[in-house]
């Protein structure tokens, strides 16, 4: 009798345990991003929580990875195991890699002409010019822009004012003259300016001189098969940097790529240098270095080569890619979340807590209404720089396979130029040969 009761009890509890499985489970939308800090990952997770409350049929889960390289490796492995998430963040120079991988589907294709998904409106025209043009491939809006920055210039105005300079230098010649004045001061800083030796800055300074990095219109009309690293603009740039190091104005820490950002943070915040080229994504931090350490920080456009003039600057940052082959509910959920992230309010708050530009015009208007830019003039510099840039082949940015590896070749070349006496043309030509070999192998393995 007892045995029968126990059996009954077990059966009933099993049935009860199974009931939730029959209930409507929210479709899980996994989002992989390359942020692990509280500010950025936290913001994304807060938006996911809000979204989940607004749309209970979806369950958005945001996972953070330490950096882009780890995220790519994890994505490649997940693809092999058929365990891809719904949305992956790829940074801008990996756009060609993302396209070639076959994991993703263009957002315009997924939307299929719809103008709203789950009540969230679709408005591709609202994106800021250079941003839209970067992520529109073959005329199709491919990935959702999210964190977008530009390369700008931060100046320690306290030191500059002491040297009699009222506005930050706008050209290379003005920068040189400013450094001459600053280094002549009594308690001059150790060096005058610095920049992170990251391939992005090379690309920015090349684009400013309207030089394309790759053939086939920077890889936008057809697959890029050749890079040009020894263009006149590149030679002029490296000669300028070399000369600045020789004069003792430019501080080069020797760190390359991802490791170089921290050395610039340290140098600028401790007033070891008076000026630094940096990404607008850290505008908040850099502006706060000032009051924390007793000086004033002003942001300005990245200095350009006055011999050639200023064409425009590139965007940097990353976009969110939609994975191909999702079930319709998950895909709709992913699309909705992508649109939710870039509603005017969300795009505006993302800008305010990080410093990445607000990627839509509506968000920019919202911020202007709130008087945000008047109170925080440093935050508008990147947006202004992009708004005033001419959109040419060069400033649209290159679509290049194996771009991250080619960037390593570029930073290595800059390292060689700044630390040795090898002539600039020789270094750049050797780097170009190496980069072209990498590109050739990449295309061999990825082209149709």
């Amino acid at each position, binding site marked *: 009798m007892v045995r029968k009761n126990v059996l009954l009890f077990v059966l009933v509890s099993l049935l009860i345990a199974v009931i939730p499985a029959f209930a409507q489970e929210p479709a899980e939308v996994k989002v992989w991003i390359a942020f692990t800090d509280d500010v950025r990952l936290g913001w994304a997770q807060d938006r996911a929580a809000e979204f989940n409350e607004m749309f209970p049929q979806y369950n958005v889960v945001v996972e953070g990875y330490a950096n882009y*390289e780890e995220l*790519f*490796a994890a*994505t*490649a492995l997940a*693809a092999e195991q058929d365990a891809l998430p719904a949305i992956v963040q790829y940074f801008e120079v990996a756009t060609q*890699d993302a396209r*070639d*991988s*076959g994991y993703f589907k263009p957002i315009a294709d997924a939307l299929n002409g719809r103008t709203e998904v789950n009540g969230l409106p679709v408005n591709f025209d609202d994106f800021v010019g250079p941003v839209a043009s970067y992520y529109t491939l073959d005329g199709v809006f491919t990935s959702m822009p999210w964190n977008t920055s530009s390369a700008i210039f931060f100046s320690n105005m306290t030191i500059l004012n002491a040297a009699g300079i009222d506005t930050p230098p706008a050209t290379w010649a003005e920068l040189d003259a400013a450094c001459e004045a600053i280094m002549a001061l009594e308690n001059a800083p150790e060096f005058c300016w610095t920049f992170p030796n990251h391939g992005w800055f090379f690309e920015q300074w090349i684009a400013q001189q309207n030089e394309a990095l790759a053939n086939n219109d920077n890889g936008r009309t057809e697959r890029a098969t050749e890079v040009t690293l020894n263009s006149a603009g590149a030679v002029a740039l490296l000669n300028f940097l070399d000369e600045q190091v020789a004069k003792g104005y430019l501080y080069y*820490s*020797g*760190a*390359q790529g991802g*490791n170089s950002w921290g050395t610039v943070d340290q140098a600028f915040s401790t007033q*070891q240098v008076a000026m630094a080229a940096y990404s607008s994504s850290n505008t908040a931090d850099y502006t706060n270095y000032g009051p924390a350490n007793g000086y004033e920080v002003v942001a300005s456009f990245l200095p350009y080569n006055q011999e050639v003039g200023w064409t425009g600057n590139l965007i940097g940052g990353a976009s969110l890619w939609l994975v191909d082959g999702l079930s319709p509910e998950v895909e709709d959920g992913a699309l909705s979340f992508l649109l939710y992230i870039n509603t005017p309010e969300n795009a505006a708050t993302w800008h305010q807590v990080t410093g990445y530009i607000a990627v839509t015009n509506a968000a920019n208007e919202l911020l202007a209404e709130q008087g945000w830019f008047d109170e925080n003039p440093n935050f508008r510099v990147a947006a202004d720089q992009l708004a005033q840039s001419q959109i040419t082949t060069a400033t649209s940015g290159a679509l290049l396979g*194996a771009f*991250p*590896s080619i960037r*390593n070749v570029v930073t290595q070349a800059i*390292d*060689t130029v700044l*630390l*040795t006496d090898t002539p600039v043309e020789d270094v750049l030509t050797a780097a170009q040969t190496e980069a072209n070999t*990498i590109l050739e*192998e*990449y295309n*061999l*393995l*990825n082209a149709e």
Partner: protein
Amino acid sequence: MPSVFPWVLTLIAAAVGAFILSRRCNRYQAAPLLGTVIGAAAGAVGSLVFVQPLNYCMFEPERAAVDAIFGVLLVGLGSAAFISGADFAAKLWYTRHLRASAEQKSAGYFKGWLLPFLFLAPTLIILALFLYYPSLDTFQLSTLLARLGARRTAFVCVDNFTSLVSNTQYLNSVGITLVLSAAIVFFSLAISLFIALMAFQPIKGASIYRTLLVWPYAISPAVAGAIFLLLFNPTGGIINYFLNSTIGVSVPWLNSPQAAPWVVIIASVWKSLGYNVLFYIAGLQNVPDDLREAASIDGANTVQRFFRVVFPLLSPITFFLIITNTTYAFFDTFGTIDLLTGGGPLNSTTTMMYNIYEVGIVNNDLGKAAAQSIVLFVMVIGLTIFQFRTAGQRVTYGA
């Protein structure tokens, strides 16, 4: 369609194998014909084992000479391995009577063979899955052009290997590896021997000192890198602060291609001191006192006593430590280098291991990285064999 050339090589290898094995059999006055046949077979199989799976692609007429030379090298390597294996097996076989009695006296604990294998099975399975199978995979990967995340791979025969010959960055890293390893091994052994001698004195609190001296062994190479990064930071580090305030000189430790390798050497030596000191103290405890007393009675001073009595008796330990420290310097310094210099200003601290990381993981070029890791693997094996043959002769075991 393979040309005649590879078959010629196989015949040569078979002939060499036959010669060596027949000589071995003659030595033991055993059947020479059997030895000749086995030797020929070993030579032939060995010559094919590396080139046959690649279908003799390196000997194709449209390939460059360096590919064919590499092919000859592979044939030589394979046949040398198989012939020396057969030779060793023959030596063991013909001297088995010398070991038979010894084996019968010390029988093992396990009577059968099944139970021992069951106990070993978990380890063997894990080794096979996580060590041997990926190694085979690496061999295959080294013949391909492969990038992480690419749509396909392309077979390139031995191009990944032959391109290393003209790769200045790679040759540079080989040189740096050899120099750094030699310096690390030498300084580490010398300093740790000195410290062990000091710690071995009958002083108060000796056991406490010995425990404290061993501690650096327990931290990871990356942590050692982080510690020395803080110490040797050119602008904010303590070392430059002291140098500045005392001598007034400020060395660009991590920014100069000449100074950066020394920081890596210092950090690696410091990290390995604990391990070496431990072994040397154990070795010193095994040096019999009466030998030292006899030497001093005979009129030897401290230095002579050390170099003539103590040091030769420490030679087994020294030999063992040279091998382990060389392995440490080749492989485990990766963490230290990554944190200290990230490959160094102008690649001055990029060892072969670090180069593999840069090529394979940073630049996603898997084929080339696999080829480099195989070369490193062969190099370390070769170094170990060389050390056994040369230094192993000079080791005096037992008092």
